[in-house]
């Protein structure tokens, strides 16, 4: 009986003991832990970088592992932050998440590190640096890689429709869709092939593949959020909603979810898709014989002037405050993104490093000769936008998605009202 009592008391104290032992104890300032994403090619690249570094710096080593598997890497990172088990360096942070963590005080302000400012201005355009600067003036992230969203199109179908070029504006897109639809109504009156497709999901990140790139294209890279207020209640957002709503109302885009027994683009079920460079190797591997495709910029309103922007899904590198030697961490990162390694990254993963002059730099010209489709993305890389440096962006996109569902998919609200409601809710969000 006494034994039971002792066991229970022990259990209680053991658990209380665990509370106090939250920290990891002393860390060796000459050894760092780096987490990469769990994308196969990025793991390979990380291994290459880390091995190279460790050979050159045997007294200041880095070990790496892919971010632990879970429902999403964002959740894993959050759990790590909460449990204080963060790595020193993490290279898969979505730009939109950085501000939340900066606000919480868990990220190192990189501009306080030696050599950071000079290097970053030499690698990136000044507008990129501005984009990643937080409202408090500090920079908490290193712009690393981007995957611009563009319009992928089936060359044969475009040619078959009698078009010299893929559609560039909304009306061109609409008329091409109408022509395609007319040819593809089966005997029951059902359309079974569509000019384009975007997942009919209300998930917040789905907007990266429809609303957001179209909005950036139409508005020339305008912000969604500015000064902790909604900045998207303008005519561009309304036009984008209008355009998309039309596509669904006219059955140019499929309203139901097309199940992917096989890739619907490669099978010709859809003629176009809003997607990024990751699609290239997939398409090349699985395309049927004679299938040809290419990329162009996102469609824009008919009266659009100037370059066409798009969303680039930027992933950046951060240093957590739990790191025992932030300067060493920066030196490691600097090595990882210097020119030769950026080229290696491009070759190994086919993802665009966010550096300036990509298409004119002679070091990269061989790669683009071998991968001509990537040139479109390199050109687009000059006109891309990531996210605005404000917290709670996930919620902003979620709010927009709710209105998107009501207006674009179900036609229950006018585009103007939907945008107005979304803006109202976003303002309410930032006021709390």
């Amino acid at each position, binding site marked *: *009986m006494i034994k039971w009592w002792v066991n229970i008391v022990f259990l*209680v104290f053991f658990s209380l003991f665990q509370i106090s032992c939250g920290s990891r104890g002393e860390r060796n300032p000459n050894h760092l832990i780096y987490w990469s994403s769990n994308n196969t090619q990025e793991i390979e690249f990380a291994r290459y970088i880390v091995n190279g570094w460790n050979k050159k710096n045997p007294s200041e080593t880095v070990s790496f592992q892919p971010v632990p598997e879970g429902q999403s890497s964002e959740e894993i990172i959050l759990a790590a932050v909460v449990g204080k088990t963060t790595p020193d360096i993490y290279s898969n942070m979505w730009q939109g998440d950085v501000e939340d963590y900066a606000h919480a*005080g868990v990220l190192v302000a990189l501009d306080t590190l030696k050599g950071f400012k000079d290097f970053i201005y030499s690698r990136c355009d000044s507008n990129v640096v501005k984009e990643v600067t937080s409202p408090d003036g500090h920079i908490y992230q290193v712009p690393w890689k981007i995957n611009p969203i563009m319009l992928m199109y089936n060359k044969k179908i475009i040619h078959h429709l009698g078009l010299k070029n893929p559609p560039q504006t909304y009306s061109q897109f609409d008329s091409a869709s109408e022509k395609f639809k007319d040819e593809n109504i089966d005997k029951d009156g059902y359309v079974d092939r569509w000019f384009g497709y975007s997942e009919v999901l209300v998930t917040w990140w789905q907007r990266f593949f429809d609303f957001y790139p179209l909005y950036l294209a139409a508005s020339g890279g305008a912000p969604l959020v500015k000064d902790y207020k909604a900045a998207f209640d303008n005519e561009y957002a309304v036009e984008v909603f209008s355009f998309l709503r039309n596509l669904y109302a006219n059955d140019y885009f499929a309203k*139901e979810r097309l199940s992917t027994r096989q890739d619907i683009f490669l099978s010709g079920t859809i003629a176009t898709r809003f997607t990024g460079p990751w699609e290239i190797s997939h398409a090349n591997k699985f395309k049927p014989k004679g299938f040809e495709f290419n990329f162009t910029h996102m469609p824009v309103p008919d009266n659009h002037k100037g370059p066409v922007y798009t969303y680039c899904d930027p992933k950046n590198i951060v240093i957590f405050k739990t790191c025992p030697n932030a300067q060493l961490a920066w030196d490691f990162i600097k090595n990882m993104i210097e020119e030769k390694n950026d080229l290696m990254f491009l070759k190994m993963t086919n993802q665009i490093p966010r550096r300036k002059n990509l298409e004119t730099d002679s070091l990269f010209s061989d790669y683009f000769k071998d991968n001509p489709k990537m040139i479109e993305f390199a050109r687009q890389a000059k006109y891309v936008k990531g996210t605005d440096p404000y917290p709670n962006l996930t919620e902003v996109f*979620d709010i927009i998605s709710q209105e998107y*569902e009501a207006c674009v998919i179900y036609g229950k609200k006018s585009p103007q009202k939907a945008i107005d409601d979304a803006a109202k809710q976003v303002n309410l969000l930032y006021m709390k």
Partner: protein
Amino acid sequence: MNINSKKIVPYFLVSPYIIYFLIFIAFPVVFSVVLTFHKWNIISPMQYTGLTNYVHLIHDEFFLKSLGNTLIFLVIHIPLQIIIALFLAEILNQHIKFRGFFRAAFFLPVIVSGVVVTILWQQLYGFDTGLLNRILIFLGLGRVGWLVNPSMAMPSIAIMATWKNVGLYIILFLVGLQTVPKNYYEAADLEGATHWQKFKSITLPMINPTIFMVVVLSTIGGFSLFIEPYIMTGGGPLNSTLSAVLYIYKQGFFYYHMGYSATLGLFFAVLILGVVMFQKKFIEKDK
């Protein structure tokens, strides 16, 4: 063993539970209330915000929607449940062969995980390729937008929930039916009562407690609805399947609004207790 230790024994036996209660029940309830007056996203420090969460709650259209959705669910689920369960229990209560087999068949969905049932029914409810719509087309009727029509989505979940749970309530009704003394029925037979009259005047009043229990359990189940909308529809379309718990989960573990989520939790907990007590007064009075 001396008398002293005998006196202490009960307290030793109960102490693990007391410790557990203090840590996992009492403290959370108190902390929950405290949390409703703060704003917290786990990684930053807690911020005192007074009544802001409550004010927001009143103006929150998603919160109101989730209440409405729960109501729709209960209004469909509870009557359907009672009618089907009572009907099948009545049948099983007769002298039939293979009663054990039928009972076991009806009960099978009850023990299977809700995850399995949801994934399965998601396929059955599919618009193009789902089994139900294919049967409807075969019968010459049109397709139904079970999960894609905002007005049909919650009723569809209610139907699925009925299918899953009715076995349990059949068993409960069986137990209740068997407590009705046989001589009541015999006396009614002597007076020439029809089956329906017997049912209305003898059976129903006698199993009133069971009916009440079914209503209460179903109500609590309705307010706990989470995994079904989570898997099937994610709360859509147009938030028509956003349940109370799903909304709490979303606010707490998707947006990390811990304070607001706690406020929602507190409200729903109080609401459930209120509804159950109301049902107790209302239904049990009907004796």
